[in-house]
């Protein structure tokens, strides 16, 4: 017996590159905006949770300064995940399910351009056997893309279509706005950075912050005209051992989608955290989405702007915004972590 829990408000900070602001400066106004959008004071929030990564900020316990951003006085009930803010949203959802609180504020910030993200993500690998080879995140993804091409699971043309569509959507997204339009044929003439990946096939590093307010039952109805109800949410992991898993599919995404109930009905919008163009194609397949019926990544997704550790929670905000606005009745939000789409979180959001 689960409680009805909804996303009732969101706030996104416009994306930047090479921001001069600190994490706290990114987060504090974003949290404030989410509270204003929800019509709540911070003292009314029952649980706070956020996601970040120490290695990205180059200091241990980097999340501690976020507690100052919250304004945690009087003391609050609070927790933190080392990872994407989407996982923090999952923890908050679990917390509300226990009945210990009715509201939660979840936030994340990603300052991807602050450090060498390709090397930082390499440190996620087996520290004894793989990381010492320093493969780099883009090169690993390229190996996966090559496997997918050779297996006929994706094509370079299909990857270019994903990129062209994402660039156009990102330009139209008020929180992104950058990029220059290019058609698929032109994209296919550009050089490889890690064959078969071209620069536009890889997520564009960005700095951003996002906050989401969750509420249960009647509280949600009183705070939001059209709450984005979380009808299903689940996350799963694959082994990281490259020789022991398929490069051409994401079984953990498929299992999470099954448990979240994606296939139960039509999906109007899907916001997928795909750090590489071929991974959007793999996710579309794993989640059983029909691109002819589902608008995939209308925000432009991570290919346009990838604030690492926040990009997944951004997907939740984008999907929820469309339900709130009545543009979608049923939306899917997805987040990923690790190489080759190793860990996946999938949720179904519905309007009344």
């Amino acid at each position: 017996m689960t409680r009805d829990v909804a996303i009732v408000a969101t706030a996104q900070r416009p994306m930047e590159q090479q921001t001069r602001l600190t994490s706290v400066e990114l987060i504090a106004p974003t949290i404030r905006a989410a509270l204003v959008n929800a019509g709540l004071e911070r003292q009314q929030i029952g649980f706070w949770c956020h996601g970040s990564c120490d290695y990205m900020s180059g200091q241990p316990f980097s999340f501690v300064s976020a507690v100052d951003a919250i304004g945690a006085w009087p003391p609050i009930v609070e927790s933190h995940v080392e990872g994407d803010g989407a996982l923090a949203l999952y923890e908050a959802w679990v917390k509300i399910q226990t009945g210990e609180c009715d509201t939660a504020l979840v936030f994340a910030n990603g300052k991807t351009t602050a450090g060498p993200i390709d090397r930082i993500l390499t440190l996620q690998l087996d520290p004894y056997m793989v990381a010492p080879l320093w493969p780099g995140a883009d090169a690993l993804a390229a190996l996966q893309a090559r496997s997918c091409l050779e297996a006929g699971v994706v094509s370079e043309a299909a990857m270019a279509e994903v990129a062209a569509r994402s660039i156009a959507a990102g330009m139209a997204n008020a929180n992104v706005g950058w990029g220059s339009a290019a058609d698929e044929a032109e994209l296919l003439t550009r050089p490889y950075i890690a064959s078969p990946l071209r620069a536009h096939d890889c997520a564009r590093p960005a700095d951003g912050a996002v906050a989401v307010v969750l509420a249960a039952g009647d509280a949600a109805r009183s705070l939001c005209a059209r709450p984005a109800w979380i009808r299903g949410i689940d996350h799963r992991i694959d082994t990281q051992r490259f020789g022991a898993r398929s490069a051409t599919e994401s079984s953990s995404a498929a299992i999470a989608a099954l448990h979240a109930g994606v296939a139960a009905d039509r999906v109007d919008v899907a916001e997928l955290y795909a750090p590489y163009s071929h991974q959007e194609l793999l996710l579309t397949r794993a989640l059983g989405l029909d691109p002819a019926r589902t608008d995939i990544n209308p925000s432009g997704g991570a290919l346009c702007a990838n604030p690492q550790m926040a990009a997944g929670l951004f997907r939740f905000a984008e999907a929820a915004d469309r339900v709130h606005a009545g543009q979608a009745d049923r939306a899917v939000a997805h987040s990923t972590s690790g190489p080759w789409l190793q860990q996946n979180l999938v949720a179904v959001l519905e309007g009344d």
Partner: protein
Amino acid sequence: MAIRCAVIGVGQTHHTACRADVSIAGLVREATDRALESANLTLADIDAIVIGKAPDMLEGVVMPELWLADALAAHGKPVFRVHTAGSVGGSTAIVAAQHVMAGVHKRVLTIGFEKQSDGNAMWALSVPIPFGMPVHAGAGGYFSPIVRTYIARYGVPGHIGAMVAVKDRGNALKNPYAHLHEEGLTLEKAMESPMLWDPIRFVETCPSSDGAMALVLADESTADAHVAATGRSVAWLHATAMRSEPTMFAGREQVSPVAGEMCAADLWRKAGISDPAKEIDAVEMYVPFSWFEPMWLENLGFAPKGDGWRWVEDGVTELTGSLPVNASGGVLSSNPIGASGMLRFGEAAMQVMHIAGDHQVPDARKAVGHAYGGGSQFFAMWLVGSEKP
């Protein structure tokens, strides 16, 4: 609404300065396998895994739960990672328990670990400029002014810290898993121990350890079936609580932080405890520097303000006292940072399961696990009992 939850399995590693005999994965599996054996389960029976550890910089692996999924046979399952500073072992156990209490999963494995020998804790814990004050003195340098404030405020005699050290190191002799087994430590010897961060002496300081703790948490029907099938005992969760506050602001009370007092008060309220010192039989308290035992006795509401040190002096917190604190030897005897909080929570469970061996508090029925972290700003506690709440 919440579903009852019990600890049905507890397992820990032998903690020591350098477990060169195992990899990080091997260390985690050593604790996990012992917890599963105690729960009479295998990894195949586990629905979800919740992992906690302190900063990734301690071992140099970013989000190691991703890589550890393989060693934990977790493919196709949920793996969740918690990181809340020094309190992380406690917070992780609480997050794991909430998966059960929320009815999301029935059998959850939770693991806290640290392999400090793979890195340098003093480096990892000394935040460099421009992020903070250039103290470069590790946790001891951070906490010693707070201890001095406590001593000055209540006129505490200088031997209290040494008394706690002698007690905890003595208790550790009864715990085969403890890192430090220091025979023959006396108050006189402890008082001669070198001063590291005045007033904190070497002997009053926790070690750097490699180690892991794993717990298996289960819903009521699973726990009942386990008891019926094996005749083993379980530890029922009566309450959990967490509180956080900012690191610093003008006038902040750091000897007895408000977040700690609120966390304890919330725990006592949820568990229906009106007189903690009378109703609680054993406490596993997060004491990385011995002086924190009297300070936390007051912060948690066991002793009146300014009396904590008298309780230490009177032997109240000895294994044979009326409120045994850290019968396991505590953080002062084993400190694998990311596991230390979960060791407190797990050792509390072991007490009410009556499986603590030589350091068992006779007939313990209710026990508390406590963890704190950051600049005394993150608090996590749970109360477990031999009977259902």
